[in-house]
């Protein structure tokens, strides 16, 4: 294995300043949205007493899952000792931190009382998986920071594999916790299943790797860093496997529901008669997010081009976002079965409505995008200040045994 050298990015290019300006612009928009939601109340959003979690939660969970998954690259390097991934480990751990901060910012700013963040950090109900997640998220930031420190400081490098193992385990538990937020809900038919945890783990891995590949491609394009075909081919193949893995869990989830007669209603809703949710499932998740990227990653015609890898990664993100939208919003839009065996003729609280409506407003979208902007801003600033990026990613610079 070669001794890889790392560098800071020069930070003088148009792309660097453009990236900073755009991300700051979206962060300010997000803060403005949060201020308005705080000032006027959530009445200005599309969320209501039937669909209580909306677009900000889709963005937040998307970013949190991606944060956990993006650490996969570092884990492969330090836990599974694959030298090809070693030069990418720093960027991977950095992205894990920045993406999580972006996701958590959205989640916190969406709270009814974001000013009570201290309460959330100090008053715990240990039976709540949400409370455990708060601990897991904060712990993950700490673990990743220590992992990065051990990675970057030569004198601490002997502890680096141990830190890697802890980070790897921690993020598996973290994503189990995130999936269980839904898995532990006893009353909603779309949730209350243990498969939510492995589904979210698989989704986190595919989203994380897709983001990593995109950031790597953008960064190497911006810094003119040489990027070998070999170093791209491994994560590219892995991305395909992970997309298939997510599909497997989605398939089992739906097959299980289809087997239970009592859950045919929710399945019909999601797969056939759910309007926007059905379109998002087949068009967004299945076609754009699964079939298309698999084709781009494995078909001989596209497989060698960087743009097809970038497109596949982008499609994976779109598909993952669509899947989360279906799970989070669709799961609430389908009404609760409060009166089994009864037909609700009338209700003063919309119990007789077939589908609860939810239309996200611009405030929610602004807040959600600001999470991505926070992650992007922090990443760009970090790679400018500290040496996260390898000087070269040409195949022979990474692995002198590489044979093309």
């Amino acid at each position, binding site marked *: 294995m070669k001794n890889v050298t790392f560098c800071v990015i020069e930070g003088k290019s148009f792309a660097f300043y453009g990236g900073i300006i755009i991300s700051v612009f979206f962060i300010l928009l997000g803060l403005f949205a949060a201020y308005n939601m705080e000032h006027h109340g959530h009445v200005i959003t599309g969320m209501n007493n039937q669909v209580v979690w909306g677009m900000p939660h889709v963005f937040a969970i998307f970013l949190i899952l991606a944060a956990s998954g993006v650490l996969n690259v570092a884990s492969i390097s330090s836990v599974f000792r694959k030298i090809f991934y070693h030069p990418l480990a720093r960027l991977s751990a950095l992205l894990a931190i920045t993406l999580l901060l972006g996701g958590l910012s959205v989640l916190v700013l969406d709270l009814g009382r974001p000013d009570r963040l201290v309460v959330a950090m100090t008053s715990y109900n240990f039976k709540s998986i949400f409370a455990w997640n708060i601990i897991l998220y904060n712990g993950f930031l700490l673990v990743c920071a220590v992992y990065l420190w051990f990675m970057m400081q030569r004198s601490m490098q002997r502890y680096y594999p141990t830190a890697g193992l802890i980070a790897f385990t921690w993020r598996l538990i973290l994503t189990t916790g995130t999936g269980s937020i839904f898995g532990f809900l006893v009353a909603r038919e779309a949730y209350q299943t243990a498969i939510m945890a492995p589904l979210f783990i698989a989704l986190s891995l595919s989203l994380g790797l897709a983001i990593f590949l995109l950031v790597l491609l953008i960064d190497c394009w911006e810094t003119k860093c040489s990027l070998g075909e070999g170093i791209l081919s491994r994560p590219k193949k892995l991305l395909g496997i992970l997309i298939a893995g997510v599909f497997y869990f989605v398939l089992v989830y739906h097959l299980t529901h289809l087997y239970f007669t009592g859950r045919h209603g929710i399945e019909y809703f999601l797969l056939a008669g759910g309007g926007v949710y059905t379109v998002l499932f087949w068009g967004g998740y299945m076609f754009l997010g699964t079939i298309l990227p698999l084709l781009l990653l494995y078909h001989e015609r596209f497989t060698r081009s960087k743009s097809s890898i970038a497109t596949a990664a982008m499609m994976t993100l779109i598909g993952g976002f669509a899947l989360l939208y279906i799970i989070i919003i669709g799961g609430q839009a389908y009404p609760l079965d409060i009166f089994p065996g009864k037909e609700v003729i009338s*209700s003063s*609280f919309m119990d007789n409505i077939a589908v609860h*409506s939810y239309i996200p407003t611009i405030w929610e979208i602004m807040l959600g995008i600001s999470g991505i902007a926070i992650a992007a801003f922090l990443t760009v600033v970090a790679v400018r200040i500290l040496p996260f990026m390898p000087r070269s990613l040409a195949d022979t610079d990474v692995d002198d045994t590489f044979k093309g």
Partner: protein
Amino acid sequence: MNVSTQNRRDFLKKSAIVTIAPGVLLYSVSQAHHAERPVTSTTRWGMLIDTNKCVDDCTACLNACTEEHGLTEDVPAEVKPVWIRKVTLRDRQTGKESSLPVMCQHCENPPCVDVCPTGASFKRDDGIVLVDRHICIGCRYCMMACPYKARSFVHAVLENQKPHSPRGKGTVESCNFCVYRIDTGTGPACVEACEVEGHQAMIYGDMNDPDSEISKKLKEMSSSVLRPDLKLNQGIRYQGL
């Protein structure tokens, strides 16, 4: 002589008042439910709703709740807080129709309490499920978890709040069983309104007290709970459903 007799009579009267009155007062204080008396699990507050007596187009309980807790903000229906609602059901098999109010079911094992990250959702020892608005962060996870959709989020700025039932923008709320009335010996406003209307479809009481009206009725007649499969042992029971 006459004067002295009158004086003696006055003296005796006054003595009697001074001696007996505090005793009567202390007795009544000791008998009243008092806010400072500790809440214990020897009491389990519950409600029995007779759907046969609940009149389809009557909304007296809803109006009483709105008035009692000041749920009067002018916001769209989807975001309007609802602590109690009227539902009309038809049995899919038999076609029998029933009308009933639905509110927080004050479960013995409340999912909202389980999931609340800060412990703001809590159950008092006497079975009343409440939200501590001082530590509710407005995450709405309890609303996701409630099987009865009994909780509402305060989406807008509040005005004209009732001092006895404080609320908070950005926090979650639900039927609190008019806990301050319970603690001072009067029942929930909805029960009172139903009684005033002459329907008497709702009775409340201590389900742990074998001599209470609710316990006797529950023993006499069959009742049911919503979603019994969840095994939450709710405090709200329905008769004739």
